[in-house]
């Protein structure tokens, strides 16, 4: 006859072995990943808005040059065919607004991929896994407990009083609970390992992405400065006493420049925050993206302010 105490001890040893095989860990905090995703998305949107603004101004300046007679050669807009590529066409001498327009199209794709990357990082942290297993085990344990109570009622096993030592070990659903715990540890270890590896691979890519974003912000800044000087000059030519119009022009330009400055800072911060994310997963440390989030918020507010100003100018 098998003694109950020996049986329960054997079960406990087996379960302990299962738990020890996986080093119990907690999942990485999803909040920094959510913040990184939000910030990346906002920075990407602002970059697109900045280059859209540069494109519009550049096109307007190009059209203006034809109107004023400064530019006369429309053949620059004549598309040339490629003898090798059946469907390939190109400009012989690409006008600046076309180059900026192409750059914008590519920036949209690049931003989509970068935002998708940030979203996938967040999904890795928050995807299903150990939590579901633990919940499953808990639910099953409750069901098993109820079933055991009915079996005890039917068989009358409840009548026999357990020994005091046995009371300390609940054998109900021992195997499933132990397995769920071991599986949780395994999944969390795998999650951290794979995430760390992915973040390491992603770091040089984010470095270059940040650099490309800064190029957008800084070259757009040069273009807008030239447009501003030209617009100011044209305004003086029309009416040298229109202070209100000059101040309105200055105000819009200053807002545009501020937006680009913030964008430049945000693109500089993005790869740095990505690096901190890597360190946070590896060291299980808390990480805060306050500076990047604040920049993203400022960018959003600045753009909205600029959009309102543009809308008001258009109405006038």
């Amino acid at each position, binding site marked *: 006859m098998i003694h109950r105490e020996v049986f329960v001890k054997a079960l406990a040893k087996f379960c302990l072995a299962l738990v020890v095989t996986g080093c119990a860990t907690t999942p990485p905090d999803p909040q920094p990943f959510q913040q990184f995703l939000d910030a990346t998305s906002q920075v990407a949107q602002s970059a697109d808005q900045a280059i859209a603004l540069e494109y519009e101004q550049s096109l307007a300046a190009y059209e203006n040059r034809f109107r004023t007679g400064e530019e006369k050669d429309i053949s620059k807009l004549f598309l040339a065919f490629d003898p090798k590529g059946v469907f390939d066409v190109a400009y012989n001498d690409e006008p600046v607004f076309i180059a900026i327009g192409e750059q914008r199209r590519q920036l949209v794709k*690049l931003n989509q991929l970068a935002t998708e990357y940030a979203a996938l990082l967040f999904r890795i942290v928050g995807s299903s896994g150990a939590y579901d*297993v633990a919940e499953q085990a808990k639910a099953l344990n409750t069901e098993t407990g109820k079933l055991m109570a009915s079996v005890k009622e039917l068989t009358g096993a409840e009548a026999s009083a357990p020994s005091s030592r046995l009371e300390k070990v609940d054998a109900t659903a021992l195997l499933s609970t132990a397995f769920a715990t071991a599986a949780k540890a395994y999944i969390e270890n795998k999650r951290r390992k794979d995430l760390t590896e992915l973040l390491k691979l992603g770091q040089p890519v984010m470095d270059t992405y940040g650099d490309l974003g800064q190029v957008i912000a800084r070259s757009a800044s040069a273009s807008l400065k030239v447009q501003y000087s030209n617009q100011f000059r044209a305004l003086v030519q029309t009416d040298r006493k229109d202070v209100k119009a000059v101040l309105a022009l200055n105000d819009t330009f200053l807002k545009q420049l501020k937006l680009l400055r913030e964008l430049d800072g945000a693109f500089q911060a993005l790869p740095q925050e990505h690096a901190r994310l890597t360190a946070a997963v590896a060291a299980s440390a808390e990480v805060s993206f306050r500076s990047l989030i604040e920049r993203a918020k400022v960018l959003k507010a600045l753009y909205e302010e600029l959009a309102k100003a543009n809308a008001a100018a258009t109405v006038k």
Partner: protein
Amino acid sequence: MKQDDKVELINYLAFLHNKMTRLSIRLFVQGEDTTEIDKARNRLNKEIDKLRTDIAKQWRGRAENVMGDLRKLNNRAQTIIRDLDQAADKAQKVTKVLSLFDKGLNLVKGLIV
């Protein structure tokens, strides 16, 4: 020339353009002839446009490479998510089986004296 150097140069040219515009405005306000300075401004304007076009073209080449790298990263991330989901799914199935086994063991335990 590196892209960063070109970006620095275009901003310097924008600064020069601003200086020339200021001079043109001052001459105009004083009633002087601005034809020559405006011609020079326009020439500089065209050079800035050429440089901006060049920066955009070079940028597009670099962006193409980064997009390729991001696609690889995203594919890898999707594989990781799939693997984690599959591991969780398997673990749930095994937990269910073990739970049935637990029920059996507990029945036996209840009957052992």
